[in-house]
Every structure is written in structure tokens, then in C-alpha cells.
């Protein structure tokens, strides 16, 4: 039962619960019109202390397409945070008005503070370089729809693995499926953090390989997960400039990939995927963004306890 629960990181939900969400998302994708009034009278609060396009819009679109309404702010300066209000106090207050809270924050663990401050379910929409569990729902649904499975996969993850919160959440979530192998492609400075290495990979005896060049991995993966080197995560501009162009996926590199491989990207991209790749049928990142809205619709329904039986 997901009603009333919070989603702070992928492991908060069991595999069965995730499967329930994916199944509902697929139903919504087939016939979205059936769901346009299921959340009538419900209110979603979006607390975005950091800029976002896809995640905020997809949450807002998801709630509106379910018949609910949305309040919130899209930058910290337009909230009481600018006056020095704590995260806990903000959430406690917003929890008096809303049925569900979505938070994005540049500081890692901020949604956990929020979840402890109110009884209203909290969804982590990205906390610093830490976790982004609803992006992972999107990623998993996209993989499942294309591959028909979430086990027996070799997943290449390329780019910023250190600060890439989508990467950390994806690896955590995939670590529970059988026979998953990771090929991690990054410069030395942007390798996965210790906690992912120890607590996710080593603890679960998951095979992983670390390489420096995309060419060393592209012909061996079922899924290639590209990421952006994120300027906003660097305290030092020089480091960002040095690393930002580490990997660029183009049509030439795609020639070496298998015809069944799929490319995912949490977006936004800067230049790590050349625009020429967009027309390749294996490029699923915009399809992935679209699925993000549907899987968030399913998540909202589950956390609000809206029964599928109430759908007309």
C-alpha cells in the first residue's frame, strides 16, 4: 500500500510496488482521458528551490491531467527561504494546505528533512548531487517498455557519475534486479561516490567495470545512459571547464553500438549527445521525458490512495 508514503530514494518502494506503478502508468498511457477527474479536489505543492523544466512541468502536468490543482514556487527567492525560513518550517506550513508535496533542493537530504516535518507524503524531485527517484521511475519504465524486462541487462552509464543524482538513483534501483552489469564511463574526477560503490555495488556483489573512453563500452551495452557534466555542482569553475566536454556521443560512435541498444538521458543535454543522434531510432530520451509525466501521474495516484476502481 503506497497511500500516504513518501518517495525519497528508489529503495523506499519494493520491486512489487514499483511494478504496480509501472503497470498503472502503462494503463494511463493507453487511455489518459479515463483519468482526468480522479484527483479532483486534490492539491499538489511543488517546492522547487532549484531550477527545473522537465521535472516541475511533468509533475504539474501530471497533477493537472488527473484533475488536481497545483501550488508552489519555482525558485527559492520567491519563497520564505529568502527570509531565512528553515526547510522544516516551510514544509510544515505547506503541509497544512496541500495533499502531496514535491521538493527539489540543491542540498542533499533536504526532502528527508521535509518528510520528517509533515505527515503529507513527500516526493524527492532531486536533491543536489544525491538522488532523483522519480527520474528513475521514468528510466525504468522506458527500459521496461522497450526491452520488456528490467533484469539481464548491461547498462553503460557515461559522464558525471559523481554528482549525477539520476545515476545514483538508477544504480540503486537496478541493483535489485537479477544479472545487472554496469559499465561506468567517466573521467577519474567524476567517478561514482564511495557510498554507491560500497553500499550499492560491492554490498550486492554487482559486476561493474570502470572505463575512461566511451568507445571501450559502446558495443557491449544494452542501455547507454548519458549524463551532462553539471556546472551547478562544481565549486570550482576551472574544474567544470576542464571536464565538460569529456564525452560526446555522435553518429560515428553510434555505428559501433548494437542495433538493439537504447540511449537514455535524463535531460537537459548540453552537447554530450550530438543533435544528429536524435533521429536515430535508438535515441529514446525524448520518449523517456514523455513517459516521465505518465509515471508521475501513476505515482501521484498511488500516494494519494486513488483506487483504479474509481476511474470512469
Amino acid at each position, binding site marked *: 500500500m503506497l497511500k500516504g508514503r513518501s518517495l525519497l530514494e528508489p529503495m523506499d518502494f519494493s520491486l512489487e510496488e514499483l511494478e504496480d506503478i509501472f503497470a498503472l502508468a502503462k494503463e494511463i498511457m493507453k487511455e489518459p482521458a479515463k483519468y482526468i477527474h480522479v484527483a479532483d479536489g486534490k492539491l499538489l505543492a511543488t517546492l522547487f528551490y532549484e531550477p527545473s523544466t522537465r521535472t516541475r512541468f511533468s509533475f504539474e502536468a501530471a497533477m493537472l491531467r488527473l484533475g488536481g490543482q497545483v501550488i508552489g514556487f519555482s525558485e527559492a527567492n520567491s519563497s520564505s527561504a529568502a527570509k531565512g525560513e*528553515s*526547510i*522544516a518550517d516551510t514544509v510544515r506550513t505547506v503541509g497544512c494546505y496541500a495533499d502531496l508535496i514535491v521538493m527539489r*533542493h*540543491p542540498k*542533499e537530504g533536504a526532502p528527508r528533512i521535509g518528510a520528517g516535518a509533515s505527515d503529507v507524503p513527500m516526493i524527492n524531485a532531486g536533491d543536489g548531487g*544525491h538522488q532523483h527517484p522519480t527520474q528513475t521511475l521514468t528510466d525504468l519504465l522506458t527500459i521496461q517498455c522497450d526491452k520488456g524486462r528490467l533484469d539481464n541487462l548491461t547498462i553503460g552509464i557515461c559522464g558525471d557519475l559523481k554528482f549525477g543524482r539520476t545515476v545514483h538513483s538508477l544504480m540503486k534501483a537496478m541493483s535489485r534486479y537479477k544479472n545487472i552489469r554496469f559499465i561506468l564511463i567517466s573521467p577519474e574526477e567524476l567517478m561514482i561516490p564511495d557510498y554507491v560503490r*560500497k*553500499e550499492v555495488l560491492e554490498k550486492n556483489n554487482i559486476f561493474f567495470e570502470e572505463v575512461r573512453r566511451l568507445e571501450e563500452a559502446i558495443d557491449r551495452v544494452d542501455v547507454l545512459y548519458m549524463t551532462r557534466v553539471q556546472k551547478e555542482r562544481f565549486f570550482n569553475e576551472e574544474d567544470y571547464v576542464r571536464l565538460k566536454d569529456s564525452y560526446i556521443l555522435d553518429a560515428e560512435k553510434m555505428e559501433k553500438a548494437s542495433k538493439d541498444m537504447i540511449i537514455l538521458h535524463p535531460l537537459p543535454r548540453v552537447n554530450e549527445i550530438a543533435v544528429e543522434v536524435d533521429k536515430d531510432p535508438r535515441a529514446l530520451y525524448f520518449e523517456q521525458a514523455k513517459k516521465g509525466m505518465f509515471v508521475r501521474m501513476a505515482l501521484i495516484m498511488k500516494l494519494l490512495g486513488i483506487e483504479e476502481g474509481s476511474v470512469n
Partner: protein
Amino acid sequence: MLVINSIERGIVIDHITAGLGARILNYLDIDTSKYTIAFIMNAESATRGRKDVIKIKDVVDLNLTDLGLIDPHATVNIIEDHKVAKKIKLEIPEKVVNIIRCKNPRCVTSVEKAAPHIFHLIDPETMEYRCEYCDDIVSMKGDWQHDIMRKEWLRTKSCE
């Protein structure tokens, strides 16, 4: 030979690894208190060669279970009427609250001042702990002692 009398009522922290006694005093923030305290460094120990010992007179209600983070080999004896009323064997704690400060500048505890600093043990061998909020891992071996908060600091914090 140095002789320290037994105490009628209080706490004796015994079998402290030689050299760690001062850190325990610092953590407990009783070195600045008005309690009568005996602190013995490098005492002879039949089992460990050398040890430190701390005796605190007239105090029995200090919560000392977290001392295992500093020295899991130490023992705590609660003394009543000159006798050991209770003996506590310290262990490496599974969870510590407001003892280790998270040093990750990206962690929410760097801005949310009222948030308790919570760490969970992930490996007793390496004494590595994981921050509840940001998952940052710190090892409590090596120079870690400098990161231990003083209990005085706790009094200004809201704990769990």
C-alpha cells in the same frame, strides 16, 4: 605508586585504550564541569599493558552508550555504596545522533541548523558511518577524533 581512592557513588570508565581518555573527557564536556573527576593516564593493565581510567564522583545518570564510538574496548561501571551496581560493556553504536558532524558541504545539515546529525554504521571493521541525509561516508578511524562533537554543543541542538 599513584593511589586514587575508590568512590562511594559515581561512574568509573575503565580499560580505556591508553591515549583516548582525554578525548572521552573532551566529548563528555566534563573537563570544564564542577564534578570531582580523577583522570589516570597510562595506568598499568594486566590485559592491555597500559590503559586510561576516568572516575566521576556523584554522577550516575550520564548516557555513555555512545562512548563505544570513541573506544569500544572501554567499560563503564556505575558505582553505588562503593560497589559496582551496573557494568556496561561498550560496543560500536549502530546509530549515532549529534556525535559526528557531516562535513559534506552539499549536505542539508550545512544549512538546516536544527537538523540532528545522524549517522549509521555500515562497517564495524573499518568503523565507517553513513550520513542519513546525504549518504556521505566517514571513517571513525585515523584522525576522526577531531570530528567528534562535544556534548556541550548538543545542548543547543534539538535531538531525536
